[in-house]
């Protein structure tokens, strides 16, 4: 059980509609997979992910939750005398915390276990690099995950801890014949890890087999489904996948979206609705589109200013009267998520004449709908204590680009509560995704559309591609 397989985020290919089209609560679905060493847990998990074909499935390996070893214990481990197959070698509290956060859709730093140092990353310090030994700094490895739709958690003790079991929606035990497991293990450890056969067998006899018999195999009774023969059992895996898909579908029906803070269209002021009527109209010329988009941007920016702190300010008028007024107690830096977020810059400059503006270029990978970060140039002032960031995007659909941009800002040490996210138009699920992952980020939008088309990823009725219409790059 020394697999170096980390946790990785695997996106399904193509079809994106894990996002609820009507924006309900997106408690994610958790599948736990247990089984003996080399029983094919990971392969089964990957097969399920492939079959599910939804974005943002997180494969979480139990390896991440090994306890840190002391210096002496590391020595033992390097002599292959450490029992990694004992249920006591895992940190179940951290595991529970991580799974709970993921289930709530919060962002979480999933640790990465380093099999050389036998330490977990990230270390408690938030430093980017940590001391490996006297001469080496290594990156503080961390895998940040949020907004997952399905989490597949696998490990030999995947069905061991009671509290973790309670979090799971589906519990699977991969019951592969122990002879086959041993054969695979020998093959793998000899080929990939430079062990000799004797070494593998010694470990197997000392730790792996006793642990399997005493601790792992009995957890089979905790499983909802037992898959005999592991990956070979395509029928079982496909049945399992169908079940998960059905469950996900059912969840889509339960609307728990809290509309309390979203103004229904008929309560919006008529200037906002009038502006939307113009910019949504396919007949509107680009000339008009730009003018009215700029006007709308100005309104959004003005509204966003209300989210900032103010302080009392006393001034004297030219007629020598005293006025007890207010002054803005913050600096503002704009950050536009390119390309479309750049359309809000005119509006920003109309309100904050000399606003510094940073840029983040995020493009959606056409193959899987996942956002990709291409470019990032942020003003140095973003770290200053009184600077608030106006993060600007034109349209929020799935929220994936927004999440990434917010993540980028957080990685640049901007506190979450100093980010105000601005957009012209949003889908409820995008707003929901962002506010769940980053509850302290404030979001200002001028309109919420009901539908996010799962195939085109356009909002409906929507307004088409905002960037194309503003910059004039649409096809005829």
């Amino acid at each position: 059980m020394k697999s170096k397989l980390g946790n990785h985020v695997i996106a399904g290919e193509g079809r994106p509609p894990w996002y609820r089209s009507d924006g309900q609560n997106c408690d994610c679905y958790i599948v736990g997979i247990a089984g003996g060493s080399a029983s094919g847990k990971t392969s089964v998990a990957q097969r399920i992910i492939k079959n599910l074909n939804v974005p943002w499935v997180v494969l979480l390996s139990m390896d991440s939750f090994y306890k840190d070893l002391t210096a002496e214990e590391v020595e033992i481990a390097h002599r292959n005398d450490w029992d990694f197959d004992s249920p006591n070698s895992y940190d179940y509290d951290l595991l529970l915390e991580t799974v709970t956060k993921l289930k709530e859709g919060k962002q979480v730093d999933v640790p990465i276990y380093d099999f050389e140092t036998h330490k977990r990353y990230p270390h408690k310090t938030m430093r980017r690099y940590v001391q490996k030994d006297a001469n080496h700094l290594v990156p503080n490895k961390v895998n940040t995950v949020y907004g997952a739709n399905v989490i597949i958690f696998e490990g030999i003790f995947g069905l061991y801890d009671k509290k973790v079991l309670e979090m799971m929606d589906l519990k699977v035990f991969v019951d592969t014949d122990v002879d086959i497991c041993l054969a695979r293990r020998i093959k793998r450890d000899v080929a990939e890890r430079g062990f000799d056969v004797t070494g593998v067998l010694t470990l197997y006899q000392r730790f792996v087999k006793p642990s399997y018999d005493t601790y792992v195999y009995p957890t089979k009774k905790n499983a909802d489904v037992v898959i005999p023969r592991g990956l070979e059992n395509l029928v079982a895996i496909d049945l399992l996948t169908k079940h998960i898909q059905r469950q996900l579908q059912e969840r889509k029906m339960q609307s728990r979206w809290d509309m309390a803070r979203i103004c229904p269209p008929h309560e919006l002021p008529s200037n906002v609705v009038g502006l939307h009527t113009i910019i949504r109209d396919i007949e509107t010329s680009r000339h008009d589109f730009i003018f009215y988009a700029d006007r709308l941007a100005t309104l959004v920016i003005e509204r966003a200013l209300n989210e900032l702190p103010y302080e009392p300010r006393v001034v004297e008028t030219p007629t020598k009267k005293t006025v007890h007024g207010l002054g803005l107690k913050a600096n503002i830096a704009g950050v536009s998520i390119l390309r479309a977020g750049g359309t809000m810059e005119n509006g920003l400059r109309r309100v904050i004449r000399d606003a510094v503006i940073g840029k983040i270029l995020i493009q959606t990978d056409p193959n899987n709908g996942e956002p990709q970060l291409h470019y990032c140039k942020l003003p140095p002032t973003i770290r200053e204590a009184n600077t608030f960031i106006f993060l600007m995007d034109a349209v929020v659909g799935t929220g994936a680009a927004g999440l990434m941009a917010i993540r980028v800002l957080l990685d640049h040490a901007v506190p979450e509560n100093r980010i105000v996210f601005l957009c012209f138009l949003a889908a409820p699920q995008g707003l929901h995704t962002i506010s769940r992952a980053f509850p302290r980020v404030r979001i200002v939008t001028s309109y919420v559309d009901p539908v996010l088309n799962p195939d085109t990823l356009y909002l409906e009725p929507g307004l088409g591609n905002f960037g194309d219409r503003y910059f004039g790059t649409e096809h005829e």
Partner: protein
Amino acid sequence: MAYQPPKQVIVLPQTQQLKACTTIIRDKNTQRADFIFYSDRIIRILVEEGLNHLPVVEKTVVTPTGKEFHGIDFQGRICGVSIMRAGESMEQGLRDVCRSVRIGKILIQRDEETALPKLYYAKFPPDIASRFCLLLDPMLATGGSAIKAIETLIDYGVAEERILFLNLISCPEGIAAVVAKFPAMKIVTAEIDAGLDEKLYIDPGLGDFGCRYFGTDK
């Protein structure tokens, strides 16, 4: 008890950032560039709010996704009318919102002999009688020139209920005078000050708006 303006008066939402803007333009130490910038910001908000009080009709458009959007359209056309000189300072803000809006002008000065406001000049779009008029004057003090301007508009055939008077700073005296004379029109104002001082300036006010905007003070 706090002053309650009559129902014809629409006061902008008293947000913190609006207060911060008016604090800047009231401050005697504010540089002219800042005075213009923050005035324009408030004026844009005033015009946007003014538009919310014009009648609308439902309008359905088709978006590039092929779906229908049920929106609205403003019913009828508008024009601006600025009371010279200070009212002209509001034209930029008006144009920021209503791009190629027609703008009429009225010049009203105090008659040296009678001390009453007197109309010196008026030039309006020829079809003004069919339009909604956004009457522009940044300060509403005694209401003397505003009343004269509104009388002029009505003379030109504009219906009283089609006039929206936009100003930044007003006071109860001016509001009372205008509303008493023209109860069917609306006033949109950013802030209502305590009242008039002995020189009939708005208290606390911000000095002479036109002079500060156009740079002719001192």
